[in-house]
């Protein structure tokens, strides 16, 4: 056991002394923080974009080009103004070309051309993600058309108001997860898992290949039990990866907290940081297990080559399996349905479950038994793969020359067993 700690300490310190690892972590953390701090700071110092425009209220033009509506246009105008309290609604006759220039210049935010009782044209530069002007206007026009019709049918103004002001109350009782909200942090977490596992997995593979090519492995293997070597190495990398995630997400969270005020209008950012704690625990669990599983595979692959240059040929298959799992998960969460058969199957297969099961837990309601089964399978396979990797590592000492075939590796494993 002492040997395990010796290896663990040495390998962990190697990560801490590895300049590219430390610098890349710090750069990512810095970028993430800057991305969160800078816009936030700008908004809190100068006021957000909306506040800035409030000083000079954004302008919108409208015109009523339908003669049939002329009679009721005063009422219509009042409704318009009431519907867009943030805007200075200016009635102006405009032609399409002139308004295009004004809108593109930014003098006018949008323009409305009411072409009929239930028809209008909306002119705008870019339709932004949260642009709800058409929805508002649809509603306004609809109400207006309805009330006109009711007036014509002889209803009194009071009745009409009573009818139109009918309110529908609704409550949402959520049994599962809010998929829209969860989508964003699931995405961020899966991306984080993906990057760290690929990055550090390759680093583990590199250290093994270095040991092999410099023949330090011969010295190591005569001094340490290969299981200690393998688990020490991989757990050290796992801790380093965890630390990396911690630094990146931690600094992001801190930056977000500092500039929270500036972000209050940005739903996506807030959704990401509004992750429930239990999910964080799952994230950690799947990170550790998934990381170890893949790090073992990478290490085993690397012990089969004798030169650093051959490393990619053996680590590519491992990467491919991993990318496959990643793509399935991303497709799953993007489609909004994470409970498809393929996702269910993938959340049980140890190679894909760290991402697939995590995505399902986060975006849907997964029966406890399934979660337990998935984690159980993952733990058992990680241990088996770890022991297998240690054997391959040891057997790898005798493998010099060309990269061996799978058959040869299996043969070696059998011999070791």
């Amino acid at each position, binding site marked *: 056991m*002492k040997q395990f700690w010796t290896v663990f300490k040495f390998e962990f310190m190697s990560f801490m002394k590895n300049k590219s690892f430390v610098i890349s972590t710090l750069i990512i953390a810095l970028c993430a923080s800057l991305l969160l701090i800078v816009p936030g700071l700008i908004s809190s110092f100068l006021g957000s974009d909306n506040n800035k425009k409030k000083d000079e209220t954004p302008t919108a033009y409208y015109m009523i080009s339908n003669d049939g509506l002329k009679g009721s246009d005063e009422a219509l105008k009042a409704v318009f103004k009431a519907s867009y309290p943030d805007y200075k609604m200016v009635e102006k006759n405009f032609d399409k070309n002139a308004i295009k220039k004004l809108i593109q210049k930014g003098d006018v935010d949008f323009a409305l051309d009411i072409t009929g009782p239930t028809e209008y044209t909306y002119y705008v530069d870019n339709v932004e993600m949260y642009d709800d002007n058409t929805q508002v206007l649809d509603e306004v026009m609809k109400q207006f058309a309805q009330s006109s019709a009711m007036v014509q049918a002889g209803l009194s103004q009071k009745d009409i108001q009573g009818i139109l002001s009918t309110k529908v109350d609704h409550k949402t009782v959520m049994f599962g997860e809010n998929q829209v909200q969860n989508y964003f942090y699931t995405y961020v977490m899966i991306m984080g898992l993906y990057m760290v596992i690929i990055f550090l997995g390759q680093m583990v593979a590199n250290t093994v290949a*270095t040991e092999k090519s410099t*023949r*330090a492995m*011969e*010295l190591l293997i*005569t001094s340490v039990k290969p299981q200690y070597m393998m688990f020490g190495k991989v757990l050290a990398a796992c801790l380093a990866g965890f630390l990396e995630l911690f630094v990146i997400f931690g600094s992001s969270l801190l930056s977000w907290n500092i500039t929270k005020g500036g972000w209050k209008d940005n739903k996506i950012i807030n959704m990401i940081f509004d992750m429930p704690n239990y999910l964080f625990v799952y994230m950690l669990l799947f990170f550790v297990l998934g990381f170890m599983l893949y790090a073992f595979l990478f290490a085993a692959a690397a012990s089969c080559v004798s030169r650093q240059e051959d490393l990619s040929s053996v680590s590519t298959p491992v990467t491919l399996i991993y990318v496959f799992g990643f793509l399935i998960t991303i497709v799953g969460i993007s489609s909004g349905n994470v409970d498809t058969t393929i996702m269910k199957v993938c959340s049980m297969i140890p190679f894909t479950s760290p991402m697939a099961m995590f995505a399902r837990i986060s975006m849907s309601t997964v029966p406890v038994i399934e979660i337990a089964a998935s984690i159980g399978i993952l733990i058992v396979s990680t241990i088996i793969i770890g022991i297998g990797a240690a054997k391959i590592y040891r057997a790898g*000492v005798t493998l010099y020359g060309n990269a061996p075939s799978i058959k040869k590796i299996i043969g070696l494993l059998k011999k070791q067993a």
Partner: protein
Amino acid sequence: MILEVRDLRKSFGTKEVLKGITFSAESGEALGLLGRNGAGKTTTIRIILDVFKGNSGEILIDGKPINYDEITYGYLPEERGLYPKKKIIDQLVYFAELKGMSGKNARKAADQWLERLEMSEYRNKKPQELSKGNQQKIQLISAVIHDPDVLILDEPFSGLDPVNALMLQKVVQEEITKGKIVLFSSHQMNYIEEFCNNIIVMRDGEVSVGGRIDDIKDSYPKDRLVIRSMDSDKILEEYGDTASKQADGSIFISIPSEEQRFAMMAEITQKYSIDSISVWRPSLLDIFVEYAGDDEAKGETK
């Protein structure tokens, strides 16, 4: 303590690399492992070190199967086995800790060894910044730092300048005197002669000859004289077919039988002015060529 290797066999695939190796080595003595490239020396060493197992055969310490948890090893591999990009002190301490030393003792021992081999200035450097000879010194430190019971040195002096070689020789000599079992593999015969009382010569996975170097030398027939003389031309003329001039200027004369060697030496010294005359003894190189070479090479020397 006696290390015995008995009837060790090993195959890689269909190729039989070791075909029954047997030898023993005692504390306080160095055993030289000789053989051409591919004779099976490194495989034997690796099996002794438990890098992998032999197909059959035994490795015994004092008659009992070796217990790898009890016996400590120092190993200096033929090819460098250092991390090229890690600080020297860090990796020396790491290897020593893996061999069971405490961190504190490992650091102390590493510093002492660095000092002794005049390497202190390289303490915080990386092996890739060091010359080949200096890397070899570090490699030797990592083999002896934890004071092992068995020391296995595979080509320890290759790539060293004479001053460094002398420094390392002292270390190795000291380890032998301390009573360690030292296995020594080298192609540099002078080092083997210097350190080893016993050798085994391996050929194609078999021990072709083994034992004390003196005994092996004595086993050769004493039927040849080596002469250095100003009168070499006259000698060559008189002894005709039985005499031959060697590249280094000396003359070999074959004697019909061993018993006549002293009489013949007396005769020649009387007749000619002789600088030196002796009965031919094989050098280690001669033994090596005869026992390690393939059959063709053997034919040529005889």
